[in-house]
């Protein structure tokens, strides 16, 4: 224990002064009585005694000395070094993504993070400004620069477990902006570190990352899709990932419309995955649910729901010189009608939902409608430019968490040559092709001009990608994104927390959506489309469009990032920045004067009570007497 104001100990010199006052009896008033005869008879032992013996039974003196000692002790402002924060301002970023629901730190990582944040807030000086930012699917400031710790605690308490990812980038940008206004700000990130951040990110203020969580023992359903053949047969396709460090066997239970139909015991190697195809599910089944029996750290990803795809097929045009791989994979994709078009006819294309240009020169102008996928375009278009060729590039995932790369491993893929495509503003590069010092995006996607566009920079025939297991998965991801909601008016599947918009049939103005917990929401149409954003609860959402017309979609947590629970030691890309700050070793002063002052106050009250006890006892006796006479009067 140390002291902020040890000089106050000199006030201890007042203690002997109190004793001296008692010895001198300065407070004695002289009173003449008829005779001291009786008093002398009684207090013979007290009278004429040595001075210090006067102090012997004096409770008041003892209490006063204690009171003063406590007061002085409080004035010296004792404190203890504790693992807390110092400084005038602190920003707490609390990750509320799905992975924070893991139960390795009971009751959950989020609760542990909140508890730690509350503790840190309590250790802050009273004058410190506290900002609380929740890094959920969307980053939000819950309490801004408040000096009211109670308000900060309320804001922390109000953070709820999310079911999606965490937008840590925006949260850090917000924190950085606030820190720029407040010098001496400390940013504390309470997260398990499973977030995606840009490679270089400048953050103002000193950043400290407090990793939450201990284990990574988790298995997750990474994918669940349904394929309805034209003849009505239903096939489910599921991927189960094991993120634990040991091989496990889990039982996967499939149920159709609430009735258990299949159970599989899957042996999954450590860090690997197991795929499963369940054919011949009951024909009429609309909703298929997969569930992993048993328990692991995260329950959110042990359950997935898939909805039977609607009958309407996606109309796709494949502009190609003939590509057997593409033809095969497109034929395998459920619900897709593919029309092959030669490059010569490309200029006069009809209306298609999706147009794929496979290693041909795209027509100019581009088709007016439909989403576009360019594979190794022979020349640039109005959307992007082609500047050169990279020889034998190595592929590198720029954003491993991107939905396009879900379950896709491109590290084993070899490429002969790739086009050097200048990334336009609207596009997000997902995979980079590195050839020596040169680097260019190998896969990019984005929305421009009201349509979705993706570009793959290398020719499939100049790579071994079509021979890898990653190929069909990549295609599912690509076509899921390029042709969403095309299969049905209502998309069959959304990421938890993602908003969805779907057109309503003619004459229908509102859709009623029944959420997984049974609550119903009515969504009014705007311009013939219904927009629904509250998909945080995982499970099956039923959409009633009126007149017996029904649809549904499933919200699932298919996120490798959230299912990979192993806590990170630091934020990605923040290693050197936080390392310089002596991460984790937070030190703060916990002051003790408050309880001491309260104790002193209690002593003061006690001293007063002792001083007035004669009056109090008299009062008590009077009360008793009054009650006794009252009782006597009450008797007949």
């Amino acid at each position, binding site marked *: 224990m140390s002291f902020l104001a040890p000089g106050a100990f000199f006030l201890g010199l007042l203690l002997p002064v109190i004793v001296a006052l008692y010895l001198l*009896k300065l407070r*004695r008033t002289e009173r*003449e*009585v008829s005779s001291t005869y009786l008093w002398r008879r009684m207090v013979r032992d007290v009278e004429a005694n040595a001075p210090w013996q006067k102090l012997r039974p004096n409770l008041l003196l003892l209490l006063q000395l204690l009171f003063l000692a406590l007061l002085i002790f409080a004035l010296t402002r004792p404190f203890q070094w504790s693992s807390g924060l110092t400084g005038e301002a602190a920003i707490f970023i609390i990750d509320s993504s799905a992975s924070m629901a893991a139960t390795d730190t009971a009751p959950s990582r989020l609760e542990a993070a909140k508890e730690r944040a509350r503790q840190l807030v309590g250790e802050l000086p009273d004058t410190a400004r506290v900002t609380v930012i929740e890094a959920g699917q969307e980053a939000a400031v819950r309490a801004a620069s408040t000096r009211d710790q109670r308000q900060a605690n309320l804001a922390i308490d109000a953070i709820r477990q999310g079911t999606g990812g965490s937008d840590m980038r925006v949260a850090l940008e917000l924190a950085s902006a606030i820190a720029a206004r407040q010098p001496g700000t400390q940013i504390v990130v309470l997260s398990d570190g499973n977030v995606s951040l840009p490679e270089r990110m400048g953050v103002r203020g000193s950043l400290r990352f407090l990793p939450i969580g201990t284990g990574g023992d988790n298995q997750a359903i990474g994918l669940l899709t349904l394929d309805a053949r034209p003849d009505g047969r239903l096939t489910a396709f599921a991927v189960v990932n094991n993120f634990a460090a040991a091989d496990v066997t889990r039982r996967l239970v499939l149920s159709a419309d609430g009735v258990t139909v299949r159970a599989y015991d899957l042996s999954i190697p450590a860090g690997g995955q197991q795929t499963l195809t369940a054919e011949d599910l009951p024909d009429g089944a609309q909703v298929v649910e997969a569930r992993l029996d048993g328990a692991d750290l995260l329950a959110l990803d042990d359950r997935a729901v898939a909805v039977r795809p609607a009958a309407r097929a996606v109309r796709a045009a494949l502009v190609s010189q003939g590509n057997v791989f593409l033809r095969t994979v497109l034929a395998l994709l459920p619900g897709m009608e593919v029309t092959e078009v030669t490059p010569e006819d490309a200029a006069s294309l009809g209306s298609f939902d999706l147009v794929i240009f496979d290693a041909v020169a795209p027509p100019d102008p581009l088709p007016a409608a439909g989403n576009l996928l360019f594979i190794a375009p022979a020349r640039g278009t109005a959307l992007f430019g082609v500047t050169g060729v990279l020889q034998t590039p190595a592929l590198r995932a720029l954003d491993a968490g991107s939905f396009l790369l879900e379950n896709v491993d491109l590290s084993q893929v070899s490429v002969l040559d790739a086009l050097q495509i200048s990334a336009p503003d609207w596009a997000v590069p997902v995979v980079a092709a590195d050839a020596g010092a040169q680097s260019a995006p190998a896969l990019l996607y984005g929305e421009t001009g009201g349509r979705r566009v993706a570009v793959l920079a290398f020719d499939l025939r100049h790579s071994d990608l079509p021979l890898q297991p990653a190929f069909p998965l990549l295609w599912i991801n690509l076509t899921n994104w390029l042709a969403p909601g095309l299969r049905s008016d209502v998309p069959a599947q959304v990421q938890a927390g993602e908003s969805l918009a779907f057109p309503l049939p003619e004459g229908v103005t509102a859709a009623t959506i029944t959420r997984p917990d049974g609550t119903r929401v009515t969504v009014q149409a705007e311009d013939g489309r219904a927009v629904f954003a509250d998909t945080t609860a995982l499970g099956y959402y039923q959409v009633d469009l009126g007149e017996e017309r029904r649809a549904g979609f499933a919200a699932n947590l298919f996120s490798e990032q959230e299912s990979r629970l192993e806590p990170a030691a630091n934020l990605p890309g923040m290693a050197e920045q936080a390392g310089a700050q002596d991460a984790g070793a937070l030190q703060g002063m916990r002051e003790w004067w408050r309880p001491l002052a309260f104790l002193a106050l209690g002593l003061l009250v006690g001293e007063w009570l002792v001083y007035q006890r004669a009056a109090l006892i008299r009062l008590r006796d009077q009360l008793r007497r009054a009650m006794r006479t009252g009782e006597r009067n009450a008797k007949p």
Partner: protein
Amino acid sequence: MSERLFDEAFLQRLERLALVARRAMAGQTQGERRSPRRGQSVEFADFRPYVAGDDFRRIDWNAYARLERFFIKLFVEEEDLTVHFLVDTSRSMHWGEPSKIGYATRAVGALGYIALAGLDRVTVTGLLGDNGGLAYFPPHRGKQQAMKLFAFLLELQKPPAGNMARSAIVEQPSTELRALTGVARSLQNYAATAPAPGPLVIFSDLMDDGWQDGLRALAGRGFEVTVVHLLAPEEAEPALEGDFKLLDAETGAGVEITGDYELLARYRAELATWQADLRHFCAARGMGYVPMLTSVPLEELLFNWLRRTGVLR
């Protein structure tokens, strides 16, 4: 006389009372009290054989006729009685509201008036240390002497002149202190010099250790002693909460106390013990003991307490 002790109505009520003497005592002149002597009243007492020199007018001739021997008839003598009042006039008696001395003198006035009305002699002595002679009301007889008595009592109420040399007293050892108050000695002197023993009433607060010796001497002389122990209400229930230095009104000696609930409770217990001791002491020597607070009306003392004790009838 500017001040009066009593009004006429009170005095008339007093005349209905009479002092009681528990046994016959010798007086000085002819009176209304039964005396141990034989004398000339109408009440027959005894016979005794005639011896030469007896008054032959008192020979019982009827006895001579039957027995042919001379017998003298003896009659009970009736004499007067001297009632003694002792009033403690030390400084402590001047304390309290109303003062104890005032209460004591009014009580003496009332009792003295009763005695005078009953044709008894009344003598009052103020006990002020050694100089008892200063405040001495010699035996008087007859109701017409009442005014003289009252005047003396009013004089007695005045506080003693001159302050005591406190510093000198404080340094005195306790034996000297006792000699100065000298209650025991003045009582012993009184017992030795009083002309005729009789009923004796002492009014005092007894705040001194010498009282017991003095009372013993009085009882030995044959007085019928009644002790009226006067206490002011402030002495019975002192309102002393806090730290005080108590100064003795008589000696100026100080006692330091911290008055709290326990101490005051102890004080009350001590007072009760003291009074019980005194009552025991008096009962053992055939004395009456009347503890009295000055807050009790005088009528209550006279018409109730003293009748109950057997001093008045």
